[in-house]
């Protein structure tokens, strides 16, 4: 059973996400998204995962700065009214019901919180330091056992940055 602090953090995250969806101002939406990210970082710390917590908090701060700059370019929020609004709410409610049904069926088979099934990862825990010589187990998995995943992640980041350069280029842009 997870502790009460974790429930509080999860409630804070849900409230932040709801505010981000419902607020009329883009800047408030961005800041409430940052609340979600910060609460997630604290939750990671609480569950004793400092590697993930450091990454989460640092990326969250930088993403907040970049999103604020992007938001301040200034676009108005468009409202959906009338018949289309009803349709949207209906489709969303249907999707939520179906998702909750499948999620309940899938999550019922999971082991209880805090007691993981150590079948594959137990090998890494036992052999990590011996085989790689890295005292930080997370790094030894990221850069030795699962280095292909890290390569893929680096490729994704590289491609995303290339795309941003291509969209926001200065050379070859048509003058208005």
């Amino acid at each position, binding site marked *: 059973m997870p502790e009460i602090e974790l429930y509080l953090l999860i409630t804070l995250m849900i409230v932040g996400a709801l505010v981000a969806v419902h607020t009329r101002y883009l800047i408030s939406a961005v800041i409430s998204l940052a609340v979600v990210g910060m609460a997630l970082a604290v939750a990671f710390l609480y569950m004793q995962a400092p590697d993930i917590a450091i990454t989460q908090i640092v990326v969250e701060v930088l993403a907040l700065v970049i999103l604020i700059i992007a938001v301040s370019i200034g676009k108005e929020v468009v409202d959906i009214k009338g018949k289309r609004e009803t349709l949207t709410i209906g489709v969303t409610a249907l999707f939520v019901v179906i998702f909750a049904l499948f999620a309940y069926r899938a999550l019922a088979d999971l082991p209880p919180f805090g007691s993981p099934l150590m079948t594959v990862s137990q090998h890494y825990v036992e052999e990590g330091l011996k085989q790689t010589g890295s005292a*930080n187990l997370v790094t030894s998995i990221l850069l030795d056992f699962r280095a292909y995943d890290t390569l893929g992640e680096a490729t994704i*980041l590289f491609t995303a940055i290339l795309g941003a*350069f291509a969209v926001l280029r200065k050379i070859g842009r048509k003058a208005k």
Partner: protein
Amino acid sequence: MKNGMTLIVRVIARFVSPMIMVFGIYIILHGHLSPGGGFPGGVIIASAFVLITLSFGKEIAYQKLKESTASAMESVGALIFLILATLGIVFGGWFFLNFLPKGEPLRLISAGFIPLCNIGIGLKVGGGIFAVFLTLILFRLLEKGEGD
């Protein structure tokens, strides 16, 4: 954005940004010993440059680190990572073979090529994210019509 922020912010930023950079380098170099690694360390270094850009304006930040230099940093980091991975084949093994000696655990120079990989990833992430940030700022100035 062009002229930066007030004197208070500038003084604090001048005081704090070197410390943030040193902390980022520490996170990268000790990635195999303590929590952290190439990715968070790189983002921390990028955030130090972002702090300089926001507080002093883009001209001062441009003197410190140009957009093209940041972009080159990213490519060099990615190349370091790939070359280290390929050297595993050269040394008679497979892709991503940890070919360097493991060394004594809990020392700074240990764990084979993992610290070098961390340095490569740190360069790549730091350079890339700061380059995207600079590009966004330049684009915004361009949209407003006050860019060069």
